[in-house]
């Protein structure tokens, strides 16, 4: 018997049984398991099968049985956890979800597999194939997102190893409150247990696996994860918040008008604009302005001007 048949038999039996089945019962009763020459070989095959089912998201559970003298553990797939809940999606809602799944990049395979499950009652035209002229990368293919999401839904505290921007790697314990996607990156926001404070972690800097911890937690009502992400790069970092005055020359004026709408600005000479830009991190501010080349000037504060001069002088020093 092929392994895939054995797996289907295992799912069917564990889904349909009213009482958890012990390993012995599984070996004796489920087709495909009697073929192993001894208990050890059966055990290995069964372990691999359990792992395969769990990897697919099948809720195979281990429970204590009260069988006297027999094995203490039994296995079952609870129907309430296996089946997709009824969503009662209207046809237009399903079509819109399908369109979204079609249009995203980075995770589209998972999204399309999900939308197929939701389409089980839709006997109409073939799924997919909708013509979309745009595509959005939500970077949902990151392997750690699944486990983090499931911890968030189950309200399970997690432990993981995190590499900070400084390169330092540390173990963190967190109560996940939310997952936020910004600029192609995912962030996990939650209560850091050691610091007893809300922190945001970049998912791509989490290394290794996510360990689910015992216990639960509550998310404070009205909590909004996106408020806990830092803003622009030059606003991040240590130091007091200051305001820089940045002059954009006329050729960059349109860019400011289009992209810096929330900031205070004034007319400057020769058709340019002066903009008040809040910052905490001088290095990041300098780096950002340098990206514009020579048509921009840090007017104030004087310290930031000086820091820019030093930065350029050091650069020239390394070239010679």
């Amino acid at each position, binding site marked *: *018997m092929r392994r*895939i048949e054995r797996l*289907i*038999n295992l799912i069917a039996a564990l889904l349909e049984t009213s009482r958890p089945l012990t390993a012995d019962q599984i070996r004796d*009763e489920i*087709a495909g398991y009697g073929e192993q020459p001894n208990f050890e070989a059966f055990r290995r095959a069964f372990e691999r099968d359990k792992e395969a089912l769990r990897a*697919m*998201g*099948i809720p195979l559970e281990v429970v204590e049985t009260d069988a006297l003298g027999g094995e203490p553990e039994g296995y079952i797939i609870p129907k309430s956890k296996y*089946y*997709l*809940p009824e*969503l009662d999606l209207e046809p237009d809602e*399903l079509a*819109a*979800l399908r*369109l*979204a799944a079609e*249009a*995203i*990049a980075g*995770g589209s395979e*998972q*999204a399309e*597999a*999900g939308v197929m*499950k939701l389409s*089980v009652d839709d006997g109409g035209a073939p799924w*997919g194939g909708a013509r979309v002229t*745009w*595509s*959005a*990368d939500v970077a*949902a*293919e990151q*392997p750690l*997102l*699944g486990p983090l*999401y499931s911890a968030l*839904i189950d309200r399970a505290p997690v432990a993981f190893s995190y590499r900070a921007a400084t390169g330092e790697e540390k173990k963190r314990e967190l109560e996940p409150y*939310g997952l*936020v996607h910004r*600029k*192609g990156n995912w962030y996990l926001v939650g209560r850091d247990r050691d610091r007893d404070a809300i922190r945001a972690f970049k998912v791509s800097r989490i290394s290794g696996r996510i360990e689910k911890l015992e216990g639960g937690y509550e*998310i404070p*009502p009205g909590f909004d*994860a996106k408020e806990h992400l830092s803003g622009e790069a030059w606003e991040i970092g240590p130091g007091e918040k200051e305001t820089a005055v940045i002059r954009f020359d006329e050729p960059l004026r349109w*860019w400011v008008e*289009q992209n810096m709408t929330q900031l205070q600005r004034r007319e400057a000479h020769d058709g340019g604009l002066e903009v008040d830009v809040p910052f905490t991190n001088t290095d990041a501010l*300098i780096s950002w302005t*340098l990206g514009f*080349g020579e048509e921009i*000037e*840090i007017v104030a504060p004087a310290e930031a*001007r000086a820091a*820019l*001069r030093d*930065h350029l002088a*050091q*650069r020239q020093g390394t070239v010679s």
Partner: protein
Amino acid sequence: MSQDAAGRLGRRLQRILLLLPYAIRHPGVTVDELSLKFGVDKLELMDDLNLVFMCGLPGYGPGDLIDVSIEEDKVYVRMADYFSAPLRLSPAEALALYAGGAATADLPEMKEADSLRRALVKLGRALGIAGNGDGTSGINVRLEDRPDAHLRTMQRALREAKQVQLEYWSASRGALTKRAVDPWGLVAALGRWYLIGFDHSSDEERMFRLDRIKEASVTDMAAPVPDDFDPDRYKGAFSDRDATPNLSFEISPDVSRWFEDYYPVARSTILDDEWRKVELVSSGERWAATLVLRLGEGVRDVQPKSVVKEAARLASAIAARHAN
């Protein structure tokens, strides 16, 4: 078992676990319809059905096995009520679908936005994510840094299949340029929107960052999208995986810690003194020069040398503006 084989087995099992409920809920569905729906050829599909026919519940007698019959190309699956509903969404599927939907619902000019929002509320409720009604959600996705002034115009041009006139800031030249572009598609990646299309000024397929467009107008010129255009093809374009690197330099250990998170590095090698040699695809000499300036002391041995020269020129111009 190899990773690949495990992946194949998993995908096939997933398909069967959805094929069964589908066939049970649509008795008499044809083999052709099934093969179209599930995107597999008829032979593979028949293989799946024949396999299921051998499976069932302990006892495995005639009353225990799944009954699959194909009558005049029509498929009937019986005796498998336990497989009459699909498996719930896996965490990865739920997250990708919800995130994709949330991102899409916020786009301007999305006529499906209302339907999508309603679908997300239902999905969020069923999955236990969100929908407190107070606008907060465990999952939050925003595609772009800030609302883009030209997104609406571009979507209109795409819908009407009309050419656009752009005044575009070219980073490689450091100047505004005029372009006539046939719009093919829009792609959001890394917090920005890009227009993909055929640029008549360079006679080439090009990508344009929407935030670098100064002016955009839709013309009357018809500009049909080529039949084989597929926005998915551009998925990797932002990491320049296929292009040949034409810029290289060495970066300090400090810079190495974050550099690859922000810039598309094609190749990277660690050196004896912990510095790292990186090679990437340049967006033009001026862009490369500003990058070198930004990295300051954290970069050395920049190739080609013309970039060093441009960086030096820019540095003295900027230094002069900040002389006191």
